[in-house]
């Protein structure tokens, strides 16, 4: 069934198709319409879930943790400040190895107040142990919710589906809504090996002495490493069933390129247009979209960038005191690998606080990179009034 839906509604439909059993959520712009539609699905009996209308995002994640630990498939959604308020329990969910899925609409962090898109809210959750997918289209958003539950429940780590504020969250596109029975076949019910159960009592999360704690963290890292191949397999399986797959990264027109642009989320769509236009003019540029950010698909990134003389990374985020976060990640993926080709990496920062990243912005990135043998500055700002 094809429907014209916003990115937010694509998240809601994804959760519905996954037959989530417990939803706990709190409103925040620009996420709110995700949970509004889910509330309607529950009210109309189209989704058999308990919806706990909590009094904060912190409580939303706490309730999801309680529900997931009791064996239910749990879902929430948030954005910006709400995600930051939740942070303590974002760690908790991962440490407790609970496969909660959360839709996150990227929203710039305050002050000053901003409701527009930027990735610092989700990237500041980078080290919590959550999988993170950054989506480009509404179809990808819906499909990734379904994929994420399957991956999360296999590796026992939670997953975030990330979409840009307004550019996706409030923009309508035609989206194929898969049939429920096909999703049911793809994603069986969640049946954890251990849960809160009076017939099989266990204590979850007590004090852990140094002799055990490190092993628990080692196992989280091993699960993250496993998640790379599981995410790849699940994406391929999804492609066979539903006819769409996305890869962990997506190379676009990288053949013979002298410059690879690295992007994430909706900046990718604009970049595709620019690449097509420049390719027609004979400029040898291509694109690498990073879809899965945690675990970071370093091998896929290295493979895609092999032999390309220059790399330009566009970051809609900043780690103050260092630079763009995707640029750092790409650099680190190319280091410490025998024989790895290490091109100069130009780190651009653009579009903070929801400023538009236009075709002209992307052309400026490309022209700056082509015109210099090495980055003239560690951080290259696009369109900033200095």
């Amino acid at each position, binding site marked *: 069934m094809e429907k014209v839906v916003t990115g937010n509604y694509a998240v809601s439909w994804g959760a519905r198709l996954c037959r989530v*059993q*417990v939803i*706990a959520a709190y409103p925040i712009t620009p996420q709110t319409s995700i949970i509004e539609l889910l509330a309607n699905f529950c009210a109309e009996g189209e989704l*058999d*879930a*308990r919806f*706990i*209308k*909590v*009094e*904060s995002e*912190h*409580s*939303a994640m*706490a*309730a*999801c*943790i*309680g*529900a*997931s*630990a*009791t*064996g*239910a498939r*749990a879902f929430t959604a948030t954005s910006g400040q709400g995600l930051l308020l939740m942070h*303590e*329990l974002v760690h*908790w969910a991962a440490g407790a190895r609970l496969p909660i899925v959360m839709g996150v609409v990227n929203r710039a962090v305050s002050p000053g107040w901003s409701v527009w898109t930027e990735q610092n809210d989700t990237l500041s959750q980078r080290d919590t142990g959550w999988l993170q997918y950054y989506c480009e289209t509404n179809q990808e958003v819906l499909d990734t919710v379904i994929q994420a539950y399957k991956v999360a429940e296999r590796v026992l780590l939670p997953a975030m589906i990330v979409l840009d504020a307004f550019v996706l969250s409030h923009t309508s596109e035609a989206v194929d809504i898969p049939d429920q029975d096909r999703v049911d076949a793809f994603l069986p019910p969640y049946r954890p090996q251990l849960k*809160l*159960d*009076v017939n*099989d*009592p*266990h*204590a*979850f*999360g*007590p*004090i*852990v*002495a140094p002799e*055990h704690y490190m092993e628990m963290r080692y196992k989280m890292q091993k699960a993250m490493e496993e998640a790379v191949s599981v995410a790849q397999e699940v994406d391929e399986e999804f492609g066979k069933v539903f006819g769409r797959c996305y890869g962990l990264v997506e190379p676009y027109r990288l053949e013979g390129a002298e410059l690879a642009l690295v992007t994430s989320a909706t900046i990718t769509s604009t970049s595709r247009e620019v690449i097509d236009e420049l390719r027609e003019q004979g400029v040898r540029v291509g694109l690498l979209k990073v879809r899965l950010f945690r675990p970071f698909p370093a091998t896929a990134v290295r493979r895609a960038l092999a032999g390309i003389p220059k790399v330009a990374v566009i970051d809609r985020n900043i780690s103050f005191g260092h630079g763009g976060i995707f640029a750092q990640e790409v650099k680190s993926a190319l280091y410490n690998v025998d024989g790895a080709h290490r091109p100069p990496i130009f780190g651009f920062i653009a579009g903070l606080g929801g400023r538009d990243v236009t075709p002209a912005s992307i052309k400026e990135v490309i022209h700056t990179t082509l015109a210099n043998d090495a980055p003239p500055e560690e951080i290259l700002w696009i369109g900033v009034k200095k």
Partner: protein
Amino acid sequence: MTQITTIPGTKNFVLPEEELVYSGSVSCPGCGAALAMRYALKALGPKTIVVIPACCWSIIAGPFPYSSLKVPIYHTAFETAASLSAGVRAALDVQGDTETTVLAWAGDGGTFDIGFQALSGAAERNDDFIYTCYDNEAYMNTGIQRSSATPWMAWTTTTPVEHPKEEPKKDMVAIMAAHRIPYTATATLAYPEDFIAKFKKARSIRGTRFIHVLSPCPPGWRAEASDCIKLTRLAVESKVFPLYEIENGEKYTITVWPKKFVPVVEYLKLQGRFRHLTPENIQAIQERVDREWEKLVRKAQN
């Protein structure tokens, strides 16, 4: 006339034999909280899931890979006893289990202070679990710092005797009753028949149930470990901690009317945290306690 009704189950009381707390826990000698859990689980039985935020019970429940309870435990963050319990309840319900009781078990810091928002939210939604605050009147697990449950003029490590706590204890029971939840009650250890009857009654009700347990901490109160039970009896007899229940935020019932009343000094003098009090301080406490008791009796008469 005043409602003074012992609740069903208190006549010919026999302590239930079933033990759901293992022996050999790591609580301090004379710990009220350890005994309170033992009583609560005797009342609630094995079909109970216990949710424990950061508090003394995070320790008493035992380190990985041990547990001091025979029922499932979920350890959670300081401020999440109520919100996490709401999630557990929802997951049980959606899987068709309406029989298991969810017991949130938090200290006064996790209830009166850092967990207050989540508790108020859950109570407003009437989420279906029993929330117990075992109140030892300070942050005891971190080493005796004042909380909003600490009594007026008490010593703690953050309210030294040169500058003891100037504010009265927060009236948490009144706040919970103001949420109009189906059941709110006080309980303490010297009255196990009343304690257990209240937990059994709570178990038979759906919605948010709040039980406030006065739970002595001998190290924190600077009291003798052997005085734990005596202290709770004196707290009731001095009217410092009356035993009552409130149904639907309206119907107040005093469940234990002490056979004799004692001056507050009898309760205070066993505790080093009150050693610095002047006769005027003690008089002021006496007057406040008398006033609060009269207010309670009036509410029970309506």
